[in-house]
């Protein structure tokens, strides 16, 4: 039977190796690049897919939606707590995607000195949503800031939006 002590030393070493980097030292987004394996062809903006491009024009009177089907990258769904929630639904009301965005009419001074805020008369924002052929409805809910409490729905037919009462 081989003396396992050297294995214990090695295991301790590997453990120390794994935990050596502190949280502050960890790096993100670093891909191990191999000079011999560089791609010969690539899409400049990454692989794009069919998306529903929805532009919302917002005024004191409410939200208007202009939609079309195009190519692009779906808007990130990571943040769900931003003031305005846009939910894309299928024919049975199932949620296809929900994205949250900043309140487009809210204005805040940049930086941290002499803070102030205002409300824009009008503004707009655009989101891109996956599976455009399956989307039948867009719901908008304003949760904070100007127009807080406002809700609107838009029926989507072949990529085109119309308001739903």
């Amino acid at each position: 039977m081989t003396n396992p002590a050297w294995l214990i030393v090695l295991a301790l070493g590997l453990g120390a190796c794994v935990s050596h980097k502190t949280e502050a030292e960890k790096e993100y987004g670093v891909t191990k690049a191999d000079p011999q394996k560089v791609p010969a062809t690539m899409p400049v903006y990454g692989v794009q897919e069919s998306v529903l491009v929805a532009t919302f024009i917002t005024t004191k009177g409410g939200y208007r939606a202009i939609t079309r089907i195009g190519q692009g990258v779906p808007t990130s769904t990571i943040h769900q707590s931003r003031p305005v929630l846009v939910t894309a639904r299928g024919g049975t009301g199932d949620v296809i995607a929900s994205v949250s965005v900043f309140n487009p009419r809210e204005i805040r001074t940049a930086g941290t000195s002499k803070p102030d805020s205002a409300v824009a008369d009008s503004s707009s924002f655009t989101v891109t949503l996956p599976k455009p052929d399956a989307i039948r409805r867009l719901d908008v809910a304003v949760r904070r800031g100007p127009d807080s409490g406002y809700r609107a729905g838009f029926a989507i037919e072949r990529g085109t939006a119309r308001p739903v009462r």
Partner: protein
Amino acid sequence: MSRLRYILAILGLAGCGNQAPSLQTRYDPLHPANNTNVEFRIQAQDKDGIGNAKLYVYEYEFFTSNTGMQSARRRTGGRWGLQREWNFPTQPTTIDEKESVSGFPAGSYISYLAQVSDSKGATREEQWYFAAGTWPFGNSPIPLLANGAPAHRIDVAFVADRGDFAAARDMLPRLAALIFDGYHTNNVVRRGKGMWQFYYSPERGFISDFDDGSPFTLDVPASVTNSGIIDHAAIIHTTTKRDWASGGNFGTEPQNRGTAVHESGHAAFGLADEYDGGGHFTSSDPYHNNYSSANSCQNYNQSHNWPGTDCEAIQTGWWRPEPNGLQCIMVNDGDAAMPDFERSCSSRATWYYLTLEGS
């Protein structure tokens, strides 16, 4: 035999403790014009001494694929591979090397890969892509520093204020400092450097002065807002204005690097302000920096092994989990200086990076 195993194990232990060098790279000028020489710069530090550095350059040409996708392919006869190798027999702890490369023709997409090894063999590398020569894709955002699929990156577009720049390209010399000496020097951006991609708009835009009484105007070109890849835009101006933000987009003077990163902290990480009079809100995302009661703030801190007593009132109805003494960039943006994101904000950024990488 067993003695050899012990030696190998101990050598393994020693090797494990060896950190790869820290590495910073840049190129100049940003988006070089047709056939304009490009200077690559590699800076690295390692307490064990730097042994070797390599610079690889790969030359692509833009084209539109059969499916209409804006793409790049290896250019026949273009640069492809090792450009320069440096060996350092004296093993200095810091290096700062430059390599000038003759320019690239219209419609070029250039990749450079810098690889640095320390005297014990630990290696660090970074690879970036940038456009060179006449841009062939109309008003689409032009990559200044890219390295991956936009869906898994934070994509920032700079827009030249038409009041200050006769052409969008005129802004580029100011952006080099904002990116390399600004964003890349912040603690959270630095450790997630590869997660940040920078572009500029061929079209100019405009932001009004918050104080001048005119209608609030934040004109970001539709080719940026509708691009589907840009997460937020910054209007760059040189005329002093009182800047503001809306919809995640903002204006800034290029020298106010701290302000730019503070605003990107809102736009990218969903962080709130930590100062009186700022934008305050709760969030269901982890590691937030605003709480609507002292109790919820203290519970948050304690659940992350931070002192509950660190919670401080920001203004009526809002508490921050990070004490003012830490001077997080979300409490003081530093204007032209570059404060760090502190513990809670930094943890939010880590969560965001991990989620974005895995999304």
